[in-house]
């Protein structure tokens, strides 16, 4: 363990906030601490008049490997109310990021799984290096990615979510680019170079005009998720985590075996 924060944030003189998910030893898997940091970070950066744009990236070999399954298992042993609260904070972390009135840019390398795809989908722009690989594999572990479906549908099309959230197949950076989810590809190690002209372009634009334009897109495209819908997504998410299926899925992961629902699996 280290005392370093799980999410780093640095704001430069131009007003570019660089947010780095910082749990490299566990591939930046999210736990309660990461969720809280993102939840509060998105609100704070949105409210900070010096910030003109937010960039999100992962420290280490991967962008974000989804939920920390050990943490998830521990949460699932807690009360129903505690589970709902965890899911509520997870749902709202993504909603806040999606709602941020400033432009947001995700720089993705390596693994981007589960909640990681939600972070990318909630950002306005995604640049990925060619080594990036994606999956929405919650259903493999008996849980469910509900809180990020609205953002994923908007970012990659519901037909792609119907495929990838059900088959749980991995997809490559090139495939993510083809479906429009990723805006731009760059060579491995080239994220900063690829991001520089996009950041420069945003800084050339009227800050209020950019915020007005983002609001217009959200309004016209119906991207808003109201509190009632958010609460419903959170409760569904929590209930699934508490199901017998989730218990079996998370146990099968820990024991590195097929889950009981796979035909022919030794139960």
């Amino acid at each position: 363990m280290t005392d370093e924060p799980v999410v780093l944030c640095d704001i430069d003189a131009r007003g570019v906030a660089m947010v780095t998910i910082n749990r490299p030893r566990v591939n930046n898997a999210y736990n309660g601490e990461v969720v809280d940091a993102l939840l509060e970070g998105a609100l704070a950066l949105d409210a900070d008049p010096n910030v003109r744009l937010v960039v999100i990236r992962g420290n280490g070999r991967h962008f974000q490997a989804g939920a920390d399954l050990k943490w998830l298992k521990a949460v699932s042993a807690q009360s129903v109310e505690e589970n709902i609260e965890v899911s509520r904070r997870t749902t709202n972390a993504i909603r806040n990021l999606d709602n941020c009135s400033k432009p947001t840019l995700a720089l993705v390398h390596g693994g981007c799984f589960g909640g990681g795809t939600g972070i990318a989908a909630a950002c306005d722009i995604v640049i990925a290096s060619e080594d990036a690989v994606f999956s929405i594999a919650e259903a493999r572990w008996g849980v469910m990615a509900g809180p990020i479906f609205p953002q994923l549908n908007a970012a990659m099309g519901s037909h792609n979510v119907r495929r990838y959230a059900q088959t749980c197949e991995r997809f490559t950076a090139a495939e993510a680019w083809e479906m429009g989810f990723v805006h731009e590809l760059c060579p491995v190690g080239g994220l900063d170079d690829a991001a520089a002209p996009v950041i420069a372009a945003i800084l050339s634009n009227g800050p209020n005009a950019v915020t007005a334009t983002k609001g217009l897109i959200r309004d016209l495209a119906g991207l808003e998720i109201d509190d009632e819908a958010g609460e419903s997504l959170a409760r569904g998410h929590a209930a699934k985590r508490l199901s017998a299926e989730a218990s079996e899925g998370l146990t099968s992961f820990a024991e590195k075996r097929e889950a009981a629902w796979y035909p022919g699996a030794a139960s």
Partner: protein
Amino acid sequence: MSSPVLETRDSRGVVTLTIDRPAQRNALDSVVMDAMTAAFAGVAADASVRAVVIAGAGPVFCAGVDFGWLRQAQAQDGAANRADSEKLAAMYQAIDACTRPVVARVQGGAWAGGCSLIAACDVVVADDNARFAITEARIGLTPSLMLPYMMGRVGLRQVRRYCLTGETFDVETARRISLVSKVVPEASLDAAVADVVDALLHCAPDSLLQTKALVREWTRPPASDAAIGLAVDAFAAGRGGDEAREGLSARDGARPPQWATGSD
């Protein structure tokens, strides 16, 4: 009489529905429509079903709606025409709303209503020679029944091209506009479908139920009852209208319809 839709089910809970009218290139008539809708009702009632595969017998997946079925409308009153149109709409809706994942195995290609069938599926695997066209307008029909699904799948922009032109497009285009999910060589089609099914079986059944339900709920625009109702209105109006009469009669006479005289 044997059913034109063969239903098999394996020990894993995978149901395969094969449209079995190869001589008619698996054209959809009212018997097929009823059989498919009934098969999906059976799936809905059986909690042990884990996935559904839709296939077509013979060299081609589905040529669209049967011309005989279309012609019926010429002798029908408005209510009977509308009831027929609702029957076709009900089949597409049963596929789209199936709570279990649905995979289409597409060999050779899909035309008109065949494109509608696959637009309602979750994963569409096609062979690399498959061809597609949304040809309804060429016989004076409005390709409306697919729109509730096509809007969420290929989107308004591609609908405004491919539904209005009726042009033929290859499988690479079909994949690019998201009508097809995955393209493989013909010899690998069964293996590729088996891989998709295997991936689905690795997933927790209830997780998949909730996943599909939520993703459908957040699909924009939704394939709502209201959308389907508007689509049925437009389809029935076209099917019973003068343009369809002319289009079908031109097809029978192997001549171009009157409106096509300006093109070559």
